[in-house]
């Protein structure tokens, strides 16, 4: 058989099949890990389908019944030592297993711990990455099991709180070998949907194995890569699959998730009205206080009754004028008294009294009183003042 095939010298099917078989045989013995997707036993042989938990790829595995030992539950994690076996007859490939080991719970938990540290090291669990949920989501994406209690809870609670909420539900397997891949697919679909601004992944309670898909590395990375905020509501309160650590918000239960994502609109409206009422009352109170203050100022006499100014002035004036009058009266009296006194003295000093007793005063023309006869020359005119009247006389 020449080395190369060509259109002129094609190889027969058996040759090609044999060559493929040789190539495949070159892989040799391998240890492979996967999740048991199917198991059927016929006679002394077991036929398994081993599936990669993180990818939609599986391989057929055959082994003798005693190699498998006691029956294995679907979804169980297995580690198999096998060789590739190419069945020439039909050109089919399967792994011939010589040893099948179950991955125990302890091993699984240890694996989770390692994965957790890996994710943490990459900063995927960093709180700073957590995004806040939108206060009022325009569209809520829900990834959950078909007609599951979780789906029911999320839908009824969110619609109860806000009848206007729009929910897009993607149902998928939430346990078993296909769960992780299906959830990843659903989450990516919702993440791409521009109308969805929050994604909730909800699942009811379940055993450790049931919840294992939600600690799957690929799923955790898919959630971490989401642009849309993700809320994980997996299992009951104590359950914390790795997805809880990667999601933006961890809700204890599906109902709790609905409460965190959808505000209670009636409650919000009521709070709004309360706030508006309080603001208005505070302001009205302020205006009232200012009004009272202003009224107080305006009622002060100085302002309210300006006449008081004039009245004050008038009373002052009145008091002053009274005093003035009194002092004048007083002075007049005093003056009158002085006058009397003075006139009394004048009267006393004045010759009138003497004249009235018959005496007379002789004066020169110029009014000088003649005191000495010698002063007068004969024929000089003199005035003689009597008690009543005067005489003009000529001296002899």
């Amino acid at each position, binding site marked *: 058989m020449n080395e190369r095939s060509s259109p002129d010298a094609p190889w027969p099917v058996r040759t090609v099949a044999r060559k493929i078989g040789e190539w495949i045989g070159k892989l040799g013995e391998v240890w492979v890990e996967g999740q048991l997707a199917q198991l059927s036993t016929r006679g002394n042989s077991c036929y398994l389908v081993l599936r990669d938990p993180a990818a939609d790829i599986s391989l057929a595995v055959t082994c003798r019944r005693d190699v498998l030992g006691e029956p294995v539950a679907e979804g169980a994690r297995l580690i198999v030592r096998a060789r590739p076996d190419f069945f020439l007859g039909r050109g089919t490939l399967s792994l011939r297993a010589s040893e099948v080991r179950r991955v125990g719970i302890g091993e699984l938990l240890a694996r989770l711990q390692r994965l957790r540290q890996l994710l943490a090291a990459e900063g995927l669990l960093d709180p700073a990455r957590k995004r806040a949920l939108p206060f009022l989501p325009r569209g809520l994406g829900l990834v959950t099991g078909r007609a599951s209690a979780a789906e029911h809870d999320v839908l009824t609670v969110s619609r109860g709180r806000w009848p206007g909420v729009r929910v897009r539900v993607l149902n998928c397997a939430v346990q078993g070998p296909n769960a992780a891949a299906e959830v990843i697919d659903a989450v990516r679909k919702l993440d791409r949907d521009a109308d969805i601004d929050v994604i909730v992944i909800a699942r009811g309670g379940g055993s450790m194995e049931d919840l294992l898909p939600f600690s799957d590395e690929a799923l955790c990375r898919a959630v971490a890569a989401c642009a849309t905020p993700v809320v994980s509501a997996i299992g009951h309160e104590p359950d914390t699959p790795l997805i809880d650590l990667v999601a933006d918000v961890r809700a204890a239960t599906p109902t709790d998730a609905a409460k965190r994502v959808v505000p209670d609109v009636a409650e919000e409206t009521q709070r709004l*009205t309360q706030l508006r009422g309080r603001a208005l009352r505070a*302001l009205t109170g302020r*205006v009232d206080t200012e009004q009272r203050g202003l009224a107080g*100022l*305006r009622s*002060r006499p*100085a302002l309210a009754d300006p006449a008081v*100014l004039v009245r004050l002035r008038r009373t002052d004036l009145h008091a002053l004028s009274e005093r003035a009058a009194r002092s004048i009266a007083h002075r007049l009296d005093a003056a009158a008294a002085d006058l009397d006194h003075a006139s009394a003295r004048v009267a006393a000093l004045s010759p009138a009294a003497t004249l009235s007793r018959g005496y007379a005063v002789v004066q020169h023309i110029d009014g000088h009183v003649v005191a000495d006869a010698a002063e007068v020359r004969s024929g000089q005119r003199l005035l003689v003042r009597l008690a009543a009247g005067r005489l003009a006389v000529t001296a002899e």
Partner: protein
Amino acid sequence: MSEPSEGSRPAVELSYEQARDELAEVVRRLEAGGLTLEDSLTLWERGEALAAACQVRLDGARERLARQAPDEEPGQS
């Protein structure tokens, strides 16, 4: 309203607080007395103008509040 002696701004231009504070000062000075009759009258007129300005502001505030009264409820969202 005659221009008050210290040439302060017309009452309507003052802020509410300024008008109210000056009003309080006017009342204090009027009550303290010791002013000429003319100054007292001028001061009194100033006080009235200030009081009127304050009242206008308060009425305006109350009217604006009344416009936002809570019973005028916004539509349910």
